[in-house]
């Protein structure tokens, strides 16, 4: 946050008053914290920006997934969960015969389609051990949709990135989150006048304005920023700190017990080899709903279905409860009787469950989700303004603004690629989703490749063009890509925006409307950068003609003084 160049608090303390030769003033706490804030913020700032932005849109990942699978029709009303579960369980008998395990996610308001995955018996010779499919809740039959990762990609990317082993990505995300935590705490200490300057914004004052904006974005959302960073670390704590588990969990039985405290995934035991029909899944879901309320069941998992040793777990969803800790009913798959009821977990596991739940925000209604989205977006802007400020502050001190030193140029170009390039790359994925041929091999992976190809091109653009032009062009391109999304969709599907609106399909329409809002935001940024240039160029028109255009008064500065 505030990073005063001459901190009044850095006045010499003990040594100076002696009258002897004054030693160089020791650096005060605030100055030290300011340096810490600046450098922890910068070093992984681009990762943090990407994590924040993709994480922000992940609050609407179900809606994005719906938009990216236009073949799956909008469901105005959902049939009863128990009926759906029963229907699809029947279908699975023929779709996945002889499987040792299937797991079915029931549809809900935000996720209108059921999907299931199941273990493929090894003799099948298939390489993957699991298969999955979508099912229509109305008919219980398999539905085909284009191959796409959907909104899930942004969600996964935001904590494990891509093109690297999952564990590396998660470690990197954890490191970035630790840096973020340090940056938040040091930022609060650095910010001298949180309360006095709470509502302060000084327009058109260059670095001062950037600082005010950065402070406002940080302070207003401070509870959220702290919570999201800390709980983000908690979600992956068993990866980051495996030692307690290694020390304390000695037997496979204890391991199983630990797993059951963390999630409701049912590991299949050894089948008996004796065939026995699966009892009514519908009745089991009804029993669970009797205890938790209607619409509360999220997932049905069957182990060894069709075997005498079958078990079925009915897991409760996340709606209306803060905690992500598992709650489930375990049924004997043949008799249909409850054999175990998991209603809660130990205090430590519950603490983790609540923190996990807070991070994901899935408990909330639509309004809560919007609050998460907006404040998280402010967090994204906080990181973005912080990154830009690093260059704004240093530009004034450059010996030769025409030829900034290498470090400055690197930061500046990476800022362009991250802040202006990523929104464009994300929009590109939505375009790829509509434009890639449906029968393309590994189509889902190609949608992701497109994101990174476009992002790499944006980086190249940012490096090759003068920075100011690069900012404007990339922002404008991103705005265009998002603004034209409804047109693209109207041309490539039979679900244009006006029809979605008429049918009250808010998930589908919402993606395009929010896209338009983002387009307006990016266009506004592009315009701001462009206008600043005009203003700066006005007094020196002759010079602009006579000499090569002043290279890159750079956006940072551009936006900085723009009126």
């Amino acid at each position: 946050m505030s990073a005063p160049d001459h901190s009044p608090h850095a006045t010499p303390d003990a040594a100076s008053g002696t009258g002897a030769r004054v030693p160089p003033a020791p650096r005060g706490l605030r100055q030290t914290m300011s340096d810490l804030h600046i450098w922890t913020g910068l070093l992984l700032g681009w990762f943090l920006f990407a994590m924040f932005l993709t994480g922000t849109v992940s609050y609407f990942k179900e809606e994005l997934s719906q938009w990216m699978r236009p073949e799956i029709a909008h469901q105005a009303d959902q049939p009863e969960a128990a009926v759906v579960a029963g229907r699809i369980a029947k279908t699975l008998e023929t779709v996945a015969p002889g499987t040792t395990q299937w797991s079915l996610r029931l549809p809900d308001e935000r996720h209108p389609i059921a999907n299931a995955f199941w273990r493929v018996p090894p003799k099948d010779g298939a390489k993957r051990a699991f298969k999955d499919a979508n099912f229509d809740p109305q008919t219980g039959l398999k539905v085909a949709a284009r191959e796409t990762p959907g909104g899930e990609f942004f969600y996964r990317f935001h904590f494990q990135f891509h093109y690297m082993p999952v564990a590396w990505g998660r470690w990197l995300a954890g490191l970035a989150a630790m840096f973020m935590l340090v940056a938040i705490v040091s930022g609060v200490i650095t910010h001298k006048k949180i309360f006095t300057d709470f509502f302060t914004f000084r327009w058109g004052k260059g670095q001062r304005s950037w600082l005010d904006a950065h402070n406002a974005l940080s302070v207003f959302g401070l509870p959220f920023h702290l919570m999201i960073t800390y709980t983000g670390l908690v979600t992956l704590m068993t990866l980051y700190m495996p030692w307690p588990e290694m020390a304390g969990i000695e037997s496979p039985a204890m391991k199983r017990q630990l797993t059951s405290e963390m999630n409701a995934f049912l590991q299949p035991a050894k089948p008996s080899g004796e065939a026995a029909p699966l009892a009514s899944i519908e009745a089991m879901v009804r029993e669970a709903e009797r205890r938790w309320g209607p619409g509360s069941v999220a997932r049905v998992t069957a182990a060894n279905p069709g075997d005498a040793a079958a078990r079925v777990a009915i897991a409760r969803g996340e709606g209306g409860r803060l905690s992500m800790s598992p709650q489930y009913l375990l049924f004997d798959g043949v008799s249909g009787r409850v054999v175990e009821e998991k209603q809660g977990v130990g205090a430590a596991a519950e603490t983790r469950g609540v923190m996990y739940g807070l991070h994901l925000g899935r408990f909330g209604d639509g309004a809560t989700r919007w609050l998460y989205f907006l404040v998280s977006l402010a967090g994204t802007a906080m990181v973005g303004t912080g990154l830009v400020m690093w260059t704004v502050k240093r530009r004034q001190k450059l010996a030769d603004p025409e030829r900034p030193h290498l470090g400055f140029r690197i930061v500046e170009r990476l800022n362009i690629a991250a802040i202006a390039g990523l929104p464009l790359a994300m929009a590109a994925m939505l375009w790829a989703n509509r434009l890639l041929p449906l029968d393309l091999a590994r189509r889902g992976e190609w949608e992701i490749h497109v994101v990174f190809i476009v992002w790499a091109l944006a980086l190249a653009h940012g490096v090759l063009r003068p920075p100011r032009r690069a900012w404007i062009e990339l922002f404008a391109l991103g705005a265009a890509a998002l603004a034209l999304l409804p047109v693209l969709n109207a041309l490539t599907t039979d679900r244009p925006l006006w029809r979605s609106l008429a049918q009250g399909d808010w998930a589908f329409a919402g993606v395009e409307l929010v896209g338009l809002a983002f387009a307006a935001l990016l266009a506004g940024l592009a315009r701001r950068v462009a206008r600043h240039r005009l203003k700066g160029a006005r007094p020196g028109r002759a010079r602009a003609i006579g000499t090569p255009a002043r290279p890159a008064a750079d956006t940072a500065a551009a936006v900085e003084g723009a009126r």
Partner: protein
Amino acid sequence: MTHFASLLICVGAFAALAMATERAQQDVLERTLSRDATRALRIIGWALLLASLAIVVGAQGWGLGLVSYSGHTSVAAGLVFLGLIARQRRKG
């Protein structure tokens, strides 16, 4: 409904707190308010924040309520902030 009511009250609260600062008084009223008026605004602001908290927690319980409340305060503070900027800009 709870969300809307709470958000509205929070906007009122932050507007009062903002008007309790000298800078906002100068910007909006072009004069500073008396010390008593400033203190009254500050009290009103904090009281409204507490009232909103009571409403949200009453409706949603402590767990969900605190989460919602934290969102309402953040968004409301942002709205008041934008309002002040708009006001400042319109004056030129």
